[in-house]
């Protein structure tokens, strides 16, 4: 319904308003008013020229660990 692309903050133009993100191969100005202060190197989910939320690297790693543990264990009772 609402296509989003993760982008890495590479430049802050106006704090809490505009930043430049890098989406592999492309750099673009995006609005950051909805996500507050952003830091260089942070990843934002971009929809139609605005960041809608920050990506949480720790949560991302946890999801993967959960699935990898399940794959390794092969136990149908564990997810």
């Amino acid at each position, binding site marked *: *319904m*609402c*296509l*989003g692309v*993760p982008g*890495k903050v590479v430049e802050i133009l106006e704090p809490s308003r505009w930043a430049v993100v890098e989406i592999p191969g492309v750099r673009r100005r995006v*609005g950051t*008013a*909805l*996500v*507050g202060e952003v830091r260089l190197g942070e*990843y934002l*989910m971009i*929809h*139609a*020229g*605005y960041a*809608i*939320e920050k*990506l*949480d*690297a720790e*949560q*991302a*790693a*946890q*999801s*993967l660990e959960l*699935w*990898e543990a*399940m*794959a390794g264990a092969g136990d*149908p009772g564990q*997810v």
Partner: protein
Amino acid sequence: MQEILARFKDAQLGKVLLRRVREEAERAADVLGRLPVCMEVCGTHTMAISRAGLHGLLRDRVVLQSGPGCPVCVTDQADIDACLDLARRREVTLTTFGDLLRVPGSRGSLEEERAGGADVRVVYSPSDAVDLAAALPERQVVFVGVGFETTAPLVALSVREAATRGLTNYSVYPSHKLYPPALRALLLDPEVRLDAFLLPGHASTILGRRRLNFIAAEHGVPGAIAGFEPLDVLSALLEILRQLAGRRAEVVNTYPRLVREEGNPVAVAIMAEVFTPSRAAWRGLGELPGSGLEFKGQWVAHDAIRRFQVERVVTRPRRGCLCGEILRGKVKPFDCGHFGRTCTPVSPLGPCMVSSEGACAAYYRYERTG
């Protein structure tokens, strides 16, 4: 982070999850006495499922049904016609996301209006439309506001931005939709049979998980908020199938790297500052109370409907186009006599074939065999 995100596409892990989904679907089918029916509400999920070939890999275990989550598809024909009227005004520069351009109204499309000389421009972001209004002070720049909770806050921001910059020539045709009322309508529709929801990842990023609890609490139906990589979709399917097999119903967030319990409070607040929920007409679902957004307070000055006295005239949809039924999950694109014959992406009869997120476009591109 880039490496972590790449791992969400891991094929090896995908195979393991797929095997688990197939096992769990079998257990759910034993409990239900038939194949479980899971609806992916979001058009981007429809595309992700087709692209990953999941229909073929799961066909014998689970029915994956598309729902009303393609913004262009659920836009009522009367709204398309109203935009065609706006485009015909000499002082108007109409700006829109590209998907809407080729959607047929009752008399032509915006693309045809543009070919006939109307000033219709595709923008990537509502902020581009505001910049255009600044660059063209003698023109009336109108942005067509379609989209769900993900998009509405950005449009609200664009209106505030225009006001801050003193631009009086920017307005919005408000046609946003709120998706929970549509789920409620489907859950109460006796003609629609579904067992669980794969819930939109990005609209739910704005709303948060807690606002979706009613699906399980009031209707006893499981739901999982899902991301858009193949592993995301599989893990969300696994979650809802496990619930069905265990006769449980909860709304679970399987996209925690983005979705929070309370959503994005800034986005919810700006939406509430500029808009108020209103009755809205959906293609396929009809009029639903509280499912749209209209301008409120000082912001009505940016309402294109008021500014240009636009009238919404209800007309009949194209004969034989099943887009409305497809959006309710009643039928699949293959059930439509026009699909792939008189209705193709090159010459679409209805919006489900036009939009890149439409179920018919996804099935046409990925699901045809032979």
